[in-house]
């Protein structure tokens, strides 16, 4: 089964995203900030990471830059899922190594469409 780490400081968003991803055939894990997510990735590198931007301790972009420096950290497909919905943020995320970008609010169709974009549909 494909694995996805959902990183978001909102418990509600993590729950909603995990439910959608589970329905789409993913085994999900959760992290509430970048630091916890990085620890999780070191223990088990997921196939995909759904990543919020603004979080305490370590932001999504900081996490992504750190992840890409980790051993096998280039492997996970990283899809941002954030309220940072401006062109500059999207460009910064892509520059940091994001594969796709979801602008909140999102629904199941958007997640499914983005999974297709990154070849995980």
């Amino acid at each position, binding site marked *: 089964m494909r694995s996805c780490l959902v990183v978001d400081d909102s418990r509600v968003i993590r729950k909603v995203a995990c439910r959608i991803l589970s329905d789409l055939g993913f085994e999900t894990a959760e992290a509430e900030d970048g630091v916890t997510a990085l620890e999780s990735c070191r223990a088990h590198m997921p196939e995909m990471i759904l990543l919020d931007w603004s979080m305490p301790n370590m932001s999504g972009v900081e996490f992504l830059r750190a992840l890409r420096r980790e051993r096998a950290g280039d492997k996970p497909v990283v899809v941002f899922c954030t309220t940072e*919905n401006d*062109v500059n943020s*999207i460009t910064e995320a892509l520059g940091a190594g994001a594969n*796709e970008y*979801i*602008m909140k609010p999102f629904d199941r*169709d*958007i997640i499914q*469409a983005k999974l297709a*974009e990154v070849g995980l549909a």
Partner: protein
Amino acid sequence: MKPDDVAYLTHMLRRRSGMMLGRAKPEFIEGRLAPVMRRFGFKDVSGLVAELRHGRDALARAVTEAMTTNESSFFRDRPSFDVFEQLVLPALLTRRGSAKRLRIWSAACAAGQEAYSIAMLLDDHKLAAKGWTIDVIATDISAEMVARGEQGLYGHFEVQRGLPVRRLVDHFSQEGSSWRVGENLRRMVTFRPFNLLDSFGWLEDIDVVFCRNVLMYLDHKAKVGVLDQISEVLLPDGYLMLGSVETPQGLSNAFDPVPGSPGLYVPARAALPRQAVG
């Protein structure tokens, strides 16, 4: 809904657009007509149909548009665009290398997503900078949809279904929570309201016709007529792109399938008067 009203709507739609209502459920019809009823002040479908029977053309047009409008998305049915990008476009760029002119028709463009998707793929080749003249002609029976396409303004959800974020950043600019198609793409696309039952006389020398998921809604006579007219406006070495489950087989002998490319057709050798004359 009264059976009489359904029968009247079925007949009217078929006459005005070639669309087959088939066994559409009353809820579907009422759902599609709800905005028209609000706009024209009707409380129920019966009242609306009663007015239609008096021959109000503006109302009939609005009903036809509401019933025939289909939701679309950027790069919808991606395999068709893969075929266009990997097979059709390279062939045409070679064949038209000296004329440097391409005319592509999106025959039922809805709010323009198909036409702009085509324009994005063309823009990848920077053809305008290389001196090419590109015309993407986008038509739809719905004047409202055509107006939306011309505006090129799409909502938060529309730009996140089928459109890779890299293309969003490269080709759109943000306006509040909406996104507007960039000027370079909009210059390539010309929108026009057009009923496929009307004469194609104003169209000529088309390199590629995108007519995807349209025939499936039309009655037999309309399908035959549309394919016949497409065969007249399509260049002898052009391409017809239908929906991947659609076929001209049994409707027209003017097209041959391209093996291995579902939905892609070329003018049949035997049906090429321009080549036969030459």
